[in-house]
């Protein structure tokens, strides 16, 4: 499941990376809400676990979607059961309390007391971070839902210290004191837990403890990672590759932790504003996740960013990034919080409009956008006279009004948005002519109206040329180079030829010299239909027009000329499957039959047997094997050494490599040298004695 989530995330990364440097982030909208209904309503009428139920209900609550009553009652029953039983785990009790906070089930009078005592026991016995988290956060939830219940945390400072003992110097946290691996996800959990301890503590905690925590948060922010190269998104991720939490859940956990910490902490938490905006953009850039857990983490993190004590990010978005110069509609810009709520009073300025053609100079400079209170959008309705069609990058800046706000709002320094301006391109002086090739004089010339199909009829032979020319100008009179300008000749036998019309300045021209093209046209004479295509993203009147036909008179095909390719009747068959390729692999060498090899194995052994028989016939004996113990031992060692070397050779052949063999051989060789020398010198001494005696 995690691997699937990881693969999906990689696909998301690819999609966002392709979108390029400047991109528009949209706040949460109704498409999210309708997707949430698909993702979070369980198929068989009940949620599989309290954790899933909590995630689904919290997401639906944040998005403002009504809960189904039968589902709520079924879930409430389960919640009441869990909270009433004394054998529920801390995790179940925690999620049951969370669900109860959303659904507000009727627990009953005795309920809270049992749970409180269970959670307090959990806090006292807790050793792992997750145990601390479930028990402390559970007690915080009980305090919110059942006001008046007596909750005493015991020695809050000791609990604080024991949680803090699991922290690491790089800002991450460990799950337990035994496990040395640290995790960023655990850091988020730890900050939530510590926030709970601070809020439940009967008296103020030591401020120096809180100060060291703030330093830890700064360290944690050092490990933040950039998502895209230039779009200013940031996220948190785990250090190790096979971590169980992906970037979405890790970043959400950190944001949850920091939000609860900032809420509980009295002196205020300062976090770098651009990173907060980057984190908001990361979650908005995810789009609509298909996974329930990712969806919950995205919406929960955005809800934390929407309403927190450090800084609330504001997002600038555009409903449409296309300006049509013919429709003359204003360009609309919306500024809102991440969940789509209203932003405070501010002004939006378009500082620059950089054209893709000339990146240095800006067409529009420092234009303030007007505000429409009814639709809460900012708009720009007048464009300068020299605003031409094409691709632009608009740079917006948001300036917050100075009046005091309850919350601290933060925006991006500059938001770059890609804008496309479209318009009607005027096509003038379109004409097609047949020219005599050597002189260049015009034989026949026809004017064209490219807005409708024509019935031009021309004829040419292979000594002549065909010339097509027209002029393209933008609405304000500049030259225009279209993205696509194709001229197609189609023979009666369906053979097609496509040529590109080249543009230079305002004029676009194509000259086809039939003398050079005779072979390419496969020597096919006859009637050719002419079709012209002009298209571009900025052109509102892209066209494909059948101009007419031309009778071509080409010479006879010689013997060796290539035939035209077979045109199949199906126009899309070229996109069908191609012929299968049969690969030729190296034919493996022919090996002899197994029985033959085995027979020869037997035959090879025969000379060796013959050798042994011959030895016995010769009367070989080992009488001169030394009898005295010293010499016997060295002789035995010598023979043993020889046997070891032979064994080493067999192992070398079977599996060892040369270097290990050489190493072992050098050791054995030194040993054999000594032992052999001793044995042979003793033998020599013995034979000398015999000779002299």
């Amino acid at each position, binding site marked *: 499941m995690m691997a699937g989530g990881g693969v999906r995330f990689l696909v998301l990364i690819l999609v966002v990376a392709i979108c390029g440097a400047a991109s528009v982030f949209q706040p949460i909208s109704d498409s999210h809400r309708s997707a949430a209904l698909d993702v979070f309503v369980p198929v068989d009428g009940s949620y599989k676990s309290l954790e899933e139920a909590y995630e689904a209900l919290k997401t639906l609550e944040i998005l403002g979607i009504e809960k189904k009553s039968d589902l709520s009652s079924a879930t409430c029953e389960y919640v009441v059961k869990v909270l009433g039983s004394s054998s529920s785990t801390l995790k179940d009790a925690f999620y049951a309390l969370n669900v109860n906070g959303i659904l507000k089930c009727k627990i009953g009078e005795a309920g809270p007391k049992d749970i409180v005592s269970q959670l307090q026991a959990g806090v006292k016995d807790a050793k792992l971070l997750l145990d601390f988290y479930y028990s402390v956060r559970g007690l915080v939830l009980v305090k919110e839902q059942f006001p008046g219940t007596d909750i005493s945390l015991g020695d809050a400072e000791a609990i604080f210290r024991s949680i803090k003992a699991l922290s690491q110097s790089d800002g991450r946290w460990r799950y337990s004191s035994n496990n040395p691996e640290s995790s960023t996800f655990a850091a988020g959990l730890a900050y939530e837990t510590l926030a709970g301890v601070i809020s439940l503590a009967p008296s103020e905690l030591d401020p120096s403890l809180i100060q060291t925590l703030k330093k830890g948060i700064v360290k944690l922010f050092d490990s933040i990672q950039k998502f895209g190269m230039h779009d200013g998104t940031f996220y948190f991720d785990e250090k190790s590759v096979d971590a169980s939490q992906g970037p979405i859940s890790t970043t959400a956990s950190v944001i949850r932790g920091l939000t609860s910490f900032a809420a509980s902490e009295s002196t205020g938490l300062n976090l770098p504003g651009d990173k907060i905006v980057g984190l908001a953009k990361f979650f908005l850039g995810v789009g609509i996740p298909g996974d329930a857990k990712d969806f919950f983490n995205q919406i929960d993190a955005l809800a934390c960013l929407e309403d927190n004590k450090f800084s609330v990010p504001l997002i600038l978005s555009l409903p449409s990034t296309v300006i049509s110069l013919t429709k003359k509609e204003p360009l609309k810009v919306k500024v809102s919080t991440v969940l789509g709520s209203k932003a405070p009073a501010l002004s939006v300025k378009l500082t620059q409009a950089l054209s893709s053609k000339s990146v240095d100079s800006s067409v529009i400079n420092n234009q303030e956008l007007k505000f429409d209170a009814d639709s809460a959008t900012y708009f720009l309705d007048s464009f300068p006279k020299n605003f031409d069609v094409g691709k632009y990058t608009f740079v917006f800046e948001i300036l917050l009004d100075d009046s005091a706000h309850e919350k601290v709002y933060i925006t991006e320094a500059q938001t770059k948005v890609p804008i496309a301006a479209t318009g009607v391109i005027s096509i003038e002086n379109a004409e097609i002519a047949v020219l005599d090739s050597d002189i260049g004089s015009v034989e026949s010339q026809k004017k064209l109206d490219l807005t409708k199909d024509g019935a031009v009829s021309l004829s040419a032979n292979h000594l002549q040329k065909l010339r097509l020319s027209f002029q393209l100008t933008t609405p304000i009179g500049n030259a225009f180079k279209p993205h696509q300008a194709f001229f197609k000749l189609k023979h009666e036998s369906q053979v097609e030829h496509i040529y590109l019309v080249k543009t230079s300045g305002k004029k676009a021209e194509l000259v086809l010299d039939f003398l050079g093209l005779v072979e390419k046209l496969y020597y096919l004479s006859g009637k050719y239909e002419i079709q012209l295509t002009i298209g571009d993203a900025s052109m509102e009147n892209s066209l494909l027009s059948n101009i007419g036909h031309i009778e071509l008179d080409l010479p006879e095909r010689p013997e060796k000329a290539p035939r035209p390719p077979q045109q199949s009747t199906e126009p899309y068959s070229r996109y069908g499957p191609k012929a299968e390729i049969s690969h030729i692999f190296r034919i493996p*060498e*022919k*090996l*002899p039959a197994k029985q*033959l*090899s085995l027979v*020869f194995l037997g*035959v*090879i052994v*025969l*000379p*060796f047997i*013959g*050798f042994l028989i*011959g*030895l016995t016939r*010769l*009367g*070989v004996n080992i009488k001169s094997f030394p009898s005295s113990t010293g010499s016997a031992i060295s002789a035995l060692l010598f023979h043993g050494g*020889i046997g070891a*070397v032979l064994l080493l*050779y067999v192992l*070398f*052949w079977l599996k060892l490599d*040369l270097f290990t*063999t050489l190493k072992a*051989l050098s050791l054995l*060789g030194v040993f054999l040298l000594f032992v*052999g*020398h001793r044995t*042979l*010198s003793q*033998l*020599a001494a013995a*034979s000398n004695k015999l000779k002299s005696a």
Partner: protein
Amino acid sequence: MARSSTSKDAQDLFHSLRSAYLATPTNLKIIDLYVCFAVFTALIQVAYMSLVGSFPFNSFLSGVLSCIGTAVLAVCLRIQVNKENKEFKDLAPERAFADFFLCNLVLHLVIINFLG
């Protein structure tokens, strides 16, 4: 007449060779036997290769050359150990055997490496 004399001569030659050979000391006969064994093994390998083709040529070469190599070394040992050889009178036979043993060790290391 001539034929019978040549055949008788051949027989006489054969007998004299045989008797001379029987007089050689036993250790030399052992070495001779070893050489014959090595050469026969090489011949059988060549016969096998001629039957089935020389596909892993390195293995064939390795096998044949190990037999020939050890035969050559044995012949050298025989020359050095033979007491009738005046040149090697001062060389102790144990020293010659040590040389034979060492050279065989190196030969077989190379052979096993080349065997593949």
